[in-house]
């Protein structure tokens, strides 16, 4: 409203008052002239005129938006009333702020992770190129279905009809030397098409394109914003400079903008892969593929396009002379393209929805508590409301005021909630549950604020509706008749509060059951033997030795064994070893088929087995037990003896018992020499505690390369494990670093963590869900107890007189106590029954989050009701005891 309008309105109001004053004065004059004494004349004139205030108000309404202004007046009144009862106000505001705040926080996570589009232009057209190979038995035991090979990339990129661009990439690590200390950085190997698909323009310079991919062409690199800031201070002259990456000089050709991530990966540098465009094998399924659909092309059409190209791929490439390129038909490779967003989010969406639902339930419980408080408050205001209603305030008017009060409370709670939520989110991002995707995108945005506003108004209306509905009604005349004074609380008055308590108990029960199911899942997971032990005392670190630094494979092995010797000699280290991949690190080292001597395979295509390459002593360090046979020796390594160790499940499946496997022979294909099984180790949960242990073949770290005659296979990136009581300390890390640099000062240490950290990360999803549900459950229990306590306590205070009469007539105190406790238990029992029914159906939705227990776990379904009933008994016993201690004389005399 403009100032002018306000000013002119003020003038109008003044005019009005002047007119009315003159009117009354003139009438008084007239009456005086008729002979009335002055004082009486003035009085009569006023009386005749009627209620000046009312007339003025109604006249002013001609200039107003009346509803709004009277609402403002109501608001002022509400503000005064809330200030007058700070205890009530603070309780309600805190309850609401926590309830709404928790919802806002979880919604912000949900919104940022699940709902917001990916931060790339036209994200709907981005797809993840995933493949399935249902015919490749054993593949599903590994971490990620079937990825793409280099030759697939060339076929798909050259011949597709449905994609605007397409590329493959692989996360990796690279050593940067020459800038400061040697440093291992997070790199991404990308092909032409990856950056084009994501379509985010570089901040400086250019993207990596086909030019960079030529193995004989220039060596280039693109930096991330963060790395550019860290190492080049954000200097734009960095473009064109060279840095040493894996001992190659590479020219910096571009810098990506701040916040740019490669799908779900933070990286330091982007390196072009150097595929041979003519001569790549069919195999090497290690790359993740992404593509951008042409506008208007549905994903099913793209699926069909890729399906068409798979035979072409087998026609165009080969694994080498004498191999059958159409062999992969057995695998039945089929495209399973997914929207990129779905691929990024993965399986976290269910966890988030479950958490959102539970937090929503907590808010409902909080609302019922507030509704209860408001009911009590409205009851104490009954007299006031009855008077107003008698003076002509309509039902609507009173309901409006009551609702306005609750919505005001809701909105005030919402404001505090935003503060709580933003702090909570800061904490969450800082703690950062490791496997929550898009963590960095989490923020309170307009949508979250809108959601908060909606929740605030909605909850305000929700908990306000019950008292408004009850007290705006017309049946209040009884108050004047004094009924309230003499009688006890009627059933009628208690009923709505009882229903609220039943609802509360039911909701609390559902939450507590879900929390206990998660706790039991967690315990089940903790009980699973992961295949290693003493995780807190295992220090791990990853070291990569690039080709360009040490070209000779045999020398790689020597460097690794020297490092191992240095590390094992450190004070406090009891043993040391290394492997290409530690359990739960998220790395699949390799996989292939093996054929056992004298064990004809049913279909000539044995299942795929996970391969891992380990140093002598590795199993001992990890605490992985030998079930039969012996470990590798250094001689096995350096002499490249044809020996291998099997996992227990593989040995049992093939030979019936671990011992029977010792001395048996196997090979991958007929041109490969037989390999002798020298040992069998217990199963290791390589992909996480909840996943079954994969069937695994362990090879000596250095072994003959079966794919290429007279060459060596020695993994260049390995994770070292040290057993020491000092694991995880900074001092220990410094000594480890010195020991490594003592062998070769160009080697950086990466992924320095204890095995316990790796283990916890693999449990992160469960523990995150567990913590959230446990918080929700305990809040629900607390609120439920408060609700029961409140209702019984209020009932006692309302029935003081009745209790007095009963006592005076000789009722036993214990009977009285029992009467109140019983009424609470009846409510709880009804709530428990309702809650059990609800839980039994709702818990089916949580099935995939559970491990080792049924969603109808009997222990949980018995324990939680017992806990709730016990809590209800205690919560009602306290006020009941007070009832029994009432002095009948005082009770009857009161009021």
């Amino acid at each position, binding site marked *: 409203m403009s100032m002018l309008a306000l000013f002119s309105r003020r003038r109008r109001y003044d005019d009005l008052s002047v007119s009315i004053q*003159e009117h009354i004065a003139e009438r008084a004059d007239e009456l005086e002239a008729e002979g009335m004494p002055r004082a009486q004349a003035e009085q009569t004139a006023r009386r005749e005129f009627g209620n000046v205030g009312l007339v003025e108000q109604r006249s002013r309404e001609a200039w107003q938006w009346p509803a709004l202004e009277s609402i403002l007046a109501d608001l002022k009144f509400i503000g005064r009333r809330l200030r007058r009862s700070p205890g009530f106000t603070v309780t309600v505001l805190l309850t609401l702020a926590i309830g709404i705040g928790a919802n806002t926080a979880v919604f912000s996570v949900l919104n940022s992770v699940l709902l917001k589009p990916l931060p790339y232009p036209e994200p709907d057209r981005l797809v993840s190129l995933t493949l399935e190979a249902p015919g490749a038995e054993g593949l599903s035991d590994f971490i990620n279905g079937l990825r793409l090979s280099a030759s697939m990339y060339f076929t798909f990129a050259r011949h597709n009809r449905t994609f605007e661009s397409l590329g493959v990439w692989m996360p990796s690590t690279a050593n940067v030397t020459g800038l400061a200390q040697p440093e291992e950085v997070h790199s991404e190997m990308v092909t032409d098409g990856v950056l084009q698909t994501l379509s985010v323009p570089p901040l400086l310079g250019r993207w990596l394109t086909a030019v960079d991919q030529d193995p004989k062409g220039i060596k280039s690199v693109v930096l991330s914003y963060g790395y550019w800031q860290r190492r080049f201070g954000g200097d734009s002259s960095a473009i064109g400079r060279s840095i040493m990456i894996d001992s190659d000089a590479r020219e910096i050709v571009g810098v990506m903008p701040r916040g740019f991530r490669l799908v779900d990966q933070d990286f330091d540098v982007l390196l072009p892969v150097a595929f041979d465009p003519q001569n790549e094998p069919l195999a090497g399924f290690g790359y993740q593929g992404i593509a951008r659909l042409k506008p208007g092309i549905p994903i099913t059409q793209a699926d069909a396009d890729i399906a068409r190209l798979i035979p072409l791929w087998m026609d165009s490439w080969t694994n080498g002379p004498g191999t059958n390129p159409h062999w992969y038909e057995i695998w039945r490779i089929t495209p399973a393209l997914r929207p990129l967003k779905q691929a990024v989010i993965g399986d976290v969406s269910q966890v988030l929805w479950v958490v959102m639902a539970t937090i929503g339930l907590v808010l409902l419980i909080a609302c019922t508590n507030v509704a209860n408080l408001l009911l009590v408050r409205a009851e104490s205001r009954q007299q006031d409301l009855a008077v107003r209603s008698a003076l002509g305030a309509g039902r609507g008017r009173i309901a409006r005021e009551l609702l306005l009060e609750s919505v005001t409370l809701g909105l005030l709670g919402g404001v505090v909630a935003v503060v709580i939520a933003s702090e909570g989110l800061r904490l969450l991002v800082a703690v950062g549950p490791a496997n929550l995707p898009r963590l960095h995108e989490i923020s309170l945005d307009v949508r979250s604020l809108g959601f908060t506003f909606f929740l605030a108004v909605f909850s305000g209306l929700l908990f306000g509706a019950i008292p408004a509905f009850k007290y705006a009604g017309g049946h209040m005349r009884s108050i004047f008749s004094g009924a309230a004074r003499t009688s006890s609380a009627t059933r009628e008055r208690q009923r709505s509060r009882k229903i609220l308590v039943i609802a509360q108990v039911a909701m609390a029960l559902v939450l507590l059951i879900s929390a206990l199911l998660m706790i039991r899942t967690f315990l089940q997971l903790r009980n699973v033997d992961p295949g290693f032990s003493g995780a807190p005392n295992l220090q791990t670190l990853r070291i990569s030795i690039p080709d360009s630094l040490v070209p000779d494979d045999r020398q790689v092995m020597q460097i690794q064994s020297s490092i191992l010797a240095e590390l094992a000699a450190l004070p406090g280290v009891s043993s040391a070893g290394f492997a290409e991949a530690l359990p739960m690190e998220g790395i699949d080292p390799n996989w292939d088929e093996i054929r056992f001597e004298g064990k004809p395979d049913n279909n000539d295509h044995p299942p795929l087995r996970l391969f891992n390459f380990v140093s002598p002593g590795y199993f001992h360090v990890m605490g992985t037990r030998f079930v039969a046979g012996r470990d590798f020796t250094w001689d096995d390594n350096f002499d490249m003896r044809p020996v291998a160790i099997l996992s227990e499940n593989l040995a049992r499946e093939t030979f019936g018992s671990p011992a029977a496997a010792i001395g048996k022979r196997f090979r991958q294909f007929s041109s490969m020499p037989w390999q002798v099984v020298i040992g069998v180790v217990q199963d290791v949960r390589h992909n996480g505690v909840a996943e079954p242990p994969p069937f695994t073949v362990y090879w000596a770290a250095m072994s003959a390369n079966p794919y290429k005659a007279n060459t060596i296979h020695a993994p260049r990136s390995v994770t070292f494990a040290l057993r020491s009581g000092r694991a995880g300390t900074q001092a220990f890390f410094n000594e480890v670093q010195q020991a490594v640099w003592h062998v070769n000062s160009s080697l950086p240490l990466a992924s320095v963590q204890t095995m316990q950290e790796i283990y916890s990360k693999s449990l992160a999803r469960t523990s995150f869900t567990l913590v959230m549900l446990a918080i929700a459950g305990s809040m629900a229990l607390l609120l439920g107890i408060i609700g029961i306590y409140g209702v019984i306590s209020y009932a006692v205070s309302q029935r003081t007189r009745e209790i007095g009469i009963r006592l005076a007539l000789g009722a036993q105190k214990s009977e009285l106590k029992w009467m109140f406790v019983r009424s609470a238990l009846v409510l709880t029992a009804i709530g428990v029954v309702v809650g059990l029914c609800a839980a039994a159906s709702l818990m089916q939705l949580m099935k995939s989050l559970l491990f080792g227990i049924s969603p109808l776990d009997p222990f949980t379904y018995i324990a939680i009701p017992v806990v709730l009933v016990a809590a209800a008994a205690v919560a009602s016993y306290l006020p009941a005891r007070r009832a029994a201690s009432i002095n009948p004389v005082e009770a009857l005399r009161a009021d």
Partner: protein
Amino acid sequence: MAKNSERRDLFPGALELMILQSLRLRPMHGYALVKHIKQVSDNLLEVEEGSLYPALQRMLREGWLDSEAGTSAKGRPTRIYRVTAAGLRHLEQEVSSFEKMFAGITRVLAVAQP
């Protein structure tokens, strides 16, 4: 509107009609308006103050009236109301529609006489 049961409620718009007609004769302040209507109608109509002032404000808002500072007969400060051109147009429309309605009612009543 009725202060005692002998008087009838006015129909909607009647009060505005009388105010406009009265002020058309000469600009007046509130009290004078009440007295004028009472006198002219031979005490048959009495305008209640509780209705008059809200009505005046509504008519000011509609632009049918104008108000200015002035003094009453006794020299007290008050506000004098006058009809605007828009008010006159409204009055004429209302009078003609009122007359039509009144003629209609009269005819119906005449037929109904035994």
